[in-house]
């Protein structure tokens, strides 16, 4: 601790922190543009100047470490004059286009100009003009507004791991850009929009659609990947206008992936807004009553085991609970939430969780990625792994198809053979794992969705035991889920009961006629051409693959339209909140199943969310622990068996389109064209 004086008050602060941090600790805000706590210190905007006694010149507080006996003044006439001066310099070349700037109303420069600026300009010279850059379909640039804080450059280099941005030229000719025309090839690029303190980088799809002050802000949870990033949904009227990250160090720090941020325009397209019933081979609009009656009529002829239910990747825990209870009441055990065919055991929580939790990555001392292309599975988590790697002394091994993960990895092989080599203590990575204090294993969906997935999981567990990945105070065995609903579904036991069929069983049963009715709860990623003549009920929010095959469509709510529970990879129970109402006749998902249960004469015993959540707690007490990741007990799991030595194939071939919402999104379609097909991004639509 060091003793310092800030504005005539004495304070004890931690040694090694900067003057700006010290001021922040004692509650004094220092204006800044270039400084950001998650990026390296640049010290080039000069806005944070303070006066330190016995220092001949003003000091940039963001880059100055505190020292014993320092006397800091942040509120003297001199300091005010400095700030005014710096502000005036920054505004020399900044255009006065706030009325037509999308950043207006949430702009650091605008706010600080109000606080520290002059009310008029003393300059008559022309302002500098800079050619706009092409950063791809997600980021709109107005480089004339850039004040060269280099936050975007540092973000791309340090956090996203794609060193493509830089400051070229010198003095008045300095420009931020890629220098050679290219779109930013990162799945986290949207965060630069948040980081930009001015309106130089703005949200391209959202451009000129709304002003920040006319939006209703709702704090919620993302479902585009399994991390459950904390988000803020900004809506105007019935439309979700944009999605922004919320701060949560336990989950997403303050980043979100591009799919999370930009797929929200998919919420407005291809929506199911009324029930449909198939008549004479064609889907016809119907009332809720007739849809439910049709289902009840068909179901009453069936025996329990002729019915199956599959929950999709975006299903919330409430609707899965209701559907599970309904299916049980109808006498079937054929339910499954693992539409990707993952061989995971819902009985043992440690076998499907990211046990070390996301913040645990920061403590790992070596990592082994097995069939986990973290960059596309969960980009924000990948950034956290990268952060761990940049801090040094953490080697990362990778088993799977060659991939650029934005940090160097030791590629150990393509398939399970490499894992066996490691189990035998051979190969270059064995020593790393043996000597690491807290080794970590991350096994991805690509490894456990194979037919021999259970055996691969067992093999990975053996490796974990051999290298002491699990100790009394560290559990480094992690399963990386890809779907937002998966952990919740497994927690609820939405898996085949005794003698029940899994997804593959339901599909083959539908083909051979032993399964006559299948209830798809937002399940679009199963092969819908393989349902034979079965009667298909599709409940969901988008007219995607499942709805096209359906005999009855029940329109549900998307994640922004309901108060629902999701469990993230760490086993953290998180709640989404209703930001806008579902369109048309669509309803919150669990209420649909509750209503249907009356028609099928199996009325479910809950009438409101509170009673339903009490039922969820009955199924798994973990649902009591909202916003907490409760560690799971380490047990035996996986089934040893024959493992085919084929490579772990990545099932994500297009990161930008993985679920019904992103498949309906125009922005994501545009990204697909630019980043996957490399097509010219200058379409007539966006000039």
């Amino acid at each position, binding site marked *: 601790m060091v003793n310092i004086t800030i504005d005539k008050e004495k304070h004890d602060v931690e040694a090694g922190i900067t003057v700006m941090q010290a001021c922040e600790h004692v509650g004094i805000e220092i204006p800044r543009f270039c400084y950001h706590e998650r990026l390296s210190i640049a010290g080039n905007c000069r806005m944070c100047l303070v006066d330190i006694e016995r220092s001949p010149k003003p000091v940039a507080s963001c880059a100055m470490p505190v020292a014993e006996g320092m006397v800091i003044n942040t509120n003297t006439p001199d300091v005010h004059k400095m700030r005014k001066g710096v502000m005036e310099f920054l505004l020399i070349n900044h255009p006065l286009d706030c009325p037509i700037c999308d950043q207006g109303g949430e702009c650091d420069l605008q706010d600080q100009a109000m606080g520290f600026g002059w009310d008029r300009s003393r300059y008559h010279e022309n302002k500098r003009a800079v050619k706009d850059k092409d950063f791809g379909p997600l980021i709109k640039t107005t480089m004339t507004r850039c004040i060269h804080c280099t936050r975007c450059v540092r973000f791309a*280099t340090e956090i996203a791991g794609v*060193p493509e*941005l*830089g*400051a070229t*030229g*010198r003095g008045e000719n300095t420009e931020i850009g890629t*220098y*050679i025309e290219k779109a930013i090839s990162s799945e986290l690029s949207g965060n630069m929009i948040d980081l930009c303190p001015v309106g130089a980088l703005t949200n391209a799809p959202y451009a000129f659609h709304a002003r920040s002050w006319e939006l209703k802000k709702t704090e919620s949870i993302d479902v585009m990947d399994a991390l459950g990033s904390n988000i803020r949904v900004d809506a105007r009227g019935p439309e979700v206008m944009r999605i922004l990250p919320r701060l949560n160090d336990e989950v997403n720090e303050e980043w979100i992936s591009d799919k999370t941020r930009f797929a929200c325009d998919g919420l407005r397209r291809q929506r199911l807004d009324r029930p449909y019933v198939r008549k004479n081979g064609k889907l016809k609009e119907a009332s809720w009553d007739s849809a439910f009656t049709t289902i009840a009529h068909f179901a009453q002829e069936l025996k329990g085991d002729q019915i199956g239910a599959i929950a999709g990747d975006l299903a919330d825990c409430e609707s899965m609970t209701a559907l599970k209870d309904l299916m049980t009441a109808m006498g079937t055990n054929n339910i499954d939430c693992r539409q990707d065919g993952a061989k995971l055991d819902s009985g043992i929580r440690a076998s499907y969780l990211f046990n070390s939790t996301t913040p645990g990555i920061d403590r790992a001392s070596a990592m082994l990625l097995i069939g986990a292309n973290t960059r596309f599975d969960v980009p924000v988590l990948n950034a956290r792994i990268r952060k761990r790697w940049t801090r040094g002394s953490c080697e990362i091994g990778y088993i799977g198809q060659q991939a650029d993960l934005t940090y160097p990895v030791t590629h150990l092989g393509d398939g399970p053979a490499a894992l066996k080599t490691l189990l035998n203590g051979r190969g270059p990575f064995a020593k790393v794992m043996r000597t690491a204090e807290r080794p970590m294993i991350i096994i991805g969906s690509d490894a456990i969705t194979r037919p021999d997935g259970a055996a691969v999981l067992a093999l990975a567990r053996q490796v974990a035991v051999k290298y002491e990945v699990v100790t009394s105070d560290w559990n480094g065995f992690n399963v990386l889920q890809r779907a937002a609903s998966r952990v919740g579904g497994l927690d609820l036991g939405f898996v085949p009961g005794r003698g029940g069929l899994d997804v593959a069983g339901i599909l083959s049963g539908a083909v051979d006629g032993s399964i006559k009715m299948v209830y798809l709860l937002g399940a679009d990623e199963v092969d819908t051409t393989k349902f034979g003549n079965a009667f298909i009920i599709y409940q969901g929010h988008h007219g995607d693959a499942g709805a096209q095959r359906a005999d009855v469509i029940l329109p549900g709510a998307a994640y922004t339209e309901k108060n629902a529970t999701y469990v993230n990879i760490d086993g953290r129970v998180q709640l989404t909140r209703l930001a806008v109402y579902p369109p048309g006749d669509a309803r919150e998902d669990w209420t649909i199943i509750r209503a249907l249960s009356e028609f099928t004469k199996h009325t479910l015993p809950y009438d409101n969310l509170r009673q339903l959540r009490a039922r969820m707690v009955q199924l798994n007490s973990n649902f009591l622990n909202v916003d907490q990741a409760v560690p799971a007990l380490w047990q035996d799991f996986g089934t040893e068996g024959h493992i085919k030595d084929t490579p772990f194939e990545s099932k994500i071939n297009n990161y930008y389109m993985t679920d019904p919402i992103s498949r309906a999104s125009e922005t994501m379609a545009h990204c697909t064209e630019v980043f996957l097909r490399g097509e010219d991004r200058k379409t007539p639509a966006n000039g």
Partner: protein
Amino acid sequence: MRESGKEFSFNEDTEAMVQSTIAKYPKGWEASAVMPLLDLAQRQNHGWLSKEAIDYVSQRLNMPPIRVYEVATFYTMYNLEPIGKHHVEVCTNLPCWLRGSDDIVAACEKALNITMGETTEDKTFTLSHAECLGACVNAPMMQIDDEYYEDLDTASTISIIDALKAGKTPKNGSQSARFSCEPATGLTSLKHQEALLKSEGNGGSL
């Protein structure tokens, strides 16, 4: 930045210098050699850096290309466009300007029949401004390739350029009678004291 359309790699002579330059920096810090390597690349590539040359340097030093573009665009000594065989850079900063750099610029323009920033048709000369080159005591001055030419006037400027045109090597340094940067009006300091001491005839201490 321009593409030359030709692949670039260091030739044998440059390669030796590249090796010794990189060897000056600790292992893992090879990127420190970026500026000397760009200079070597520019010398080999007829005085300018093509995109291919910059990309080659970035590969050699295992740096992201943008990091090298940043360096190459920051310093005016790296030429990002093709230039003539001789690069005539006239200092036009304050001390040189006070001592008549405008005349020198005019003389160059006349002798080469081009204006500032241009290259002669035969691609022999490129004329450009230079910021202070630190030879103010011998102002006005200009730099041609690696040599300084100082204490210029219209006549000496034209004669230097004519000599280069004729393929000769003109005398570098001060073009006036003085040696290096000795006082223009002859030696004064100490000499003056010597005379003073003599005239007083004491030969003793000051």
